[in-house]
């Protein structure tokens, strides 16, 4: 049986009016919800945009560094050609090369050792401070100090050349070297007499003994040829000036 639907016209009009109001409210509500969502998305989009900018700047940085490198090769060519002209410029160039090695402004190679340091693999125990099984900036500093004392001529940590302005500093869970952050493992390369360098690190009661006590992983390799890259940052002297003679 079909159910008969009552359709009083007056009632229908009032229902229609109510539905009209409902429709208006509904779409207004949808609009406002969408607006608030857009606001949230806007913040997300901003973060993404900033991340992209960082990436862009990094790329630019790499290409600029390449440019520096190219220009320096050109400069070296000029210096070489100048050196072939006269004896004085040749001597000057030798001096310049030595100073460059000292300042870490050129790639160097030679015999030396590679020290690999890594955090302890021992699972952390509840009653032991977990910090003591991690590598710290001071550990690396001690290793570098020892290498210097043993006559290392060039040192790099994770391919960051150690120069006079290099910092080795704790930066949260990472260590900041030349303003670049690295986490374990740390690979320290040093050019010098491999035997002396190795022995100085491994002497009794020395730094390696100390690190092994905390079961920090240490690996020392001797190598006949190590390449240590140049310092890639910018050396700026805002305060230090050469003292003028006679004043």
């Amino acid at each position, binding site marked *: 049986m*079909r159910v008969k*639907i009552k359709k009083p016209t007056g009632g229908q009009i009032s229902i229609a009016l109510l539905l009209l109001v409902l429709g*208006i409210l509904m*779409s*207004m509500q949808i609009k406002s919800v969408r607006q608030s969502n857009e606001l949230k998305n806007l913040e997300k989009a901003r973060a993404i945009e900033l991340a992209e900018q960082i990436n862009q700047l990094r790329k630019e940085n790499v290409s600029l560094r390449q440019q520096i490198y190219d220009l320096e090769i050109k400069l070296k060519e000029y210096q070489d050609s100048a050196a072939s002209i006269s004896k004085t410029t040749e001597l000057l160039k030798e001096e310049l090369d030595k100073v460059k090695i000292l300042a870490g402004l050129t790639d160097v190679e030679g015999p030396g050792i590679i020290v690999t340091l890594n955090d302890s693999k021992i699972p952390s125990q509840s009653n032991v401070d977990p910090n003591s099984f991690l590598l710290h900036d001071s550990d690396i500093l001690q290793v570098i100090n020892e290498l210097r004392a043993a006559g290392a001529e060039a040192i790099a940590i994770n391919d960051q050349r150690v120069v006079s302005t290099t910092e080795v500093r704790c930066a949260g869970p990472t260590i900041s070297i030349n303003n670049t952050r690295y986490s374990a493992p740390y690979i320290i390369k040093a050019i010098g007499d491999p035997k002396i360098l190795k022995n100085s690190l491994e002497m009794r009661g020395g730094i390696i003994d100390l690190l092994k006590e905390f079961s920090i992983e240490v690996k020392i390799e001797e190598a006949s040829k190590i390449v240590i890259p140049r310092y890639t940052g910018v050396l700026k002297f805002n305060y230090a000036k050469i003292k003028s003679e006679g004043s």
Partner: protein
Amino acid sequence: MIVLVIALLIGILIGLFIPVSIPQNYSSYVAVGLLAALDSIFGALKSNLKGDFKVDIFISGFVGNTLIAMLLAYMGDMLGIPLYQAAIVAFGVRIFQNFGEMRRAILIKNKSFSKEEKNQ
């Protein structure tokens, strides 16, 4: 019925093109009110199918439920109790119940038709 659907569509269009939207603070109250209104409409559809639809009941339910739902949500905010959830649960359950009854009514109706056709 067609008049009602058209009225709803016109309302939605008006709402979309009016350059006014509901302020963020009142948005949650309006949402609960809309739910109550939807419940009333489902109730009306159901009673329409069953044949005991009454305009005055529908209108009073539509307006009353909406207002009470909004008031409840507002009071909940004042008291620090999420009372709007009560409205959501109550109206949500009722919408499903109404829909279930409508479904049943329509299916049973169709079945009885087909039986009659077979008998003929």
